Every structure is written in C-alpha cells, then in structure tokens.
C-alpha cells in the first residue's frame, strides 16, 4: 500500500515528529511504500542540518536523513514555510543573498503541489501534528 506522510510540527516540540518517524519506519518495514514525507508549517524545522541535540538524545533530523537514504524517500519541505523559518538549501540561500544554507542531507524544498500530489498518489495520507 502507498502512504503519504504529512508532518506539521517541529522537532522536540511535542511528539508528532517522533510518531511520524516511527510510523513511517514501521510502514516501510512492513513492505509498504511511502510516496512522500511532506514537512509543512513548523514541521520544516525537522530538515535542519545544524541541530545539535545532547549526545544521549535522538537526533531527529539525522534520523530522517538516514531513513530517507535507506529507503530512497522523498523528504520535502514546503518552500513558503521553509523561507519564513530560515530553512534554506544552497539555491534558496543564494537567491535570498544569505551567507549559508542549512538543509539536512536528503531533504528537498518544493511547493504545496507536492502535498496535493502525495494525496492523489497515495492510498492513505496520514497527518502528524499539534
């Protein structure tokens, strides 16, 4: 079965990002397909590579990157939400005249159309948020 995952909450806030991660991981392990993980609103903060949590804590963005690499996942940040919150890939940083980018490996910036498309392509769209 094909799943789309929508995450509307930032990391280390309540539990949405953790729940979404464990759900996605369990779905993939069960042999299901995840067509896209879409990060929206504060959820885009999951895609920073500059997060430095304590060593005995989970690293949420690294964990997403690793899962993305293992299963060739599409990890998409909403462009408008990302720009507002200072989540920039190299192209966006250049365009905005900023001195650096901060996107974690495997994440991409794209538009809301990708959420609609995930809803169309997937058999199930599941929302995690606050």
């Amino acid at each position, binding site marked *: *079965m094909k799943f789309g995952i929508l995450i509307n909450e930032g990391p280390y806030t309540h539990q949405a990002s953790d729940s979404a991660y464990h759900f996605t991981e*369990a779905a993939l392990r069960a042999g*299901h397909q995840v067509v896209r993980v879409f990060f929206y609103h504060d959820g885009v903060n999951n895609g920073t590579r500059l997060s430095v949590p304590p060593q005995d804590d989970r690293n949420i963005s690294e964990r997403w990157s690793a899962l993305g690499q293992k299963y060739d996942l599409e990890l998409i940040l909403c462009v408008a939400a990302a720009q507002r919150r200072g989540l920039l890939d190299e192209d966006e940083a250049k365009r905005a005249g900023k001195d650096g980018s901060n996107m974690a490996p495997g994440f991409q910036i794209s538009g809301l159309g990708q959420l609609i498309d995930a809803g169309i392509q997937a058999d199930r769209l599941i*929302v995690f*948020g606050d």
Partner: protein
Amino acid sequence: MSVLHIVNKSPFDRNSLDSCLRLAKADSPILLIEDGIYAVQKNTAAAERMQQALSNHPVYALRSDLQARGINPDNIIDGISLVDYDGFVELTTEHDKLQSWL
C-alpha cells in the same frame, strides 16, 4: 467507506476526543496516541465518556506511548486494545480514510 480516527490530545487539555466522539460514525475505530493515551485510564473525569465510546467504537491505544507515560496496564479501561506501531500501520491499511484530530 470506513474512517480510522486518531486522537493525540489529552482529554484533560483539549476537546479533540469529544469532537471526535461527537462526529465519528458508529463502529468506526478510534486510536489513541501521544497524550491521547491519558483517556484510557480508569477513575478519571474522562472515564465515563470513554466507557460510553466503547459501546459504539472499537478503541485502540498505542502501547509505547502508554509505557512512556507510566500508565499501569491494570489501570486501563476494559475493552481498550493495545497496539504497537506495526498494529498502527495495519489499522491504517484496514480503513479507507484517516482522520487525525489535531
């Protein structure tokens, strides 16, 4: 068409469980995750509503979120089934639509 309702808020904090119970069709399942877990406990202000909900809906609770909150399995209202993440995924495949009551 069947809908799986997912509630992640404590009934002592927000009214999302009440909204869910008011609008969910009879027999559609309800899954409690995150702080939604607090609704499973016996002898609370929400227990009667939960008890009533069980006569209309199958109710599931995510085991790891229950353990994370230190809730004693003996203190869970009878009739609520515990699932792990594999069970969570399975529930989502068994129902056509997923409604998260955020």
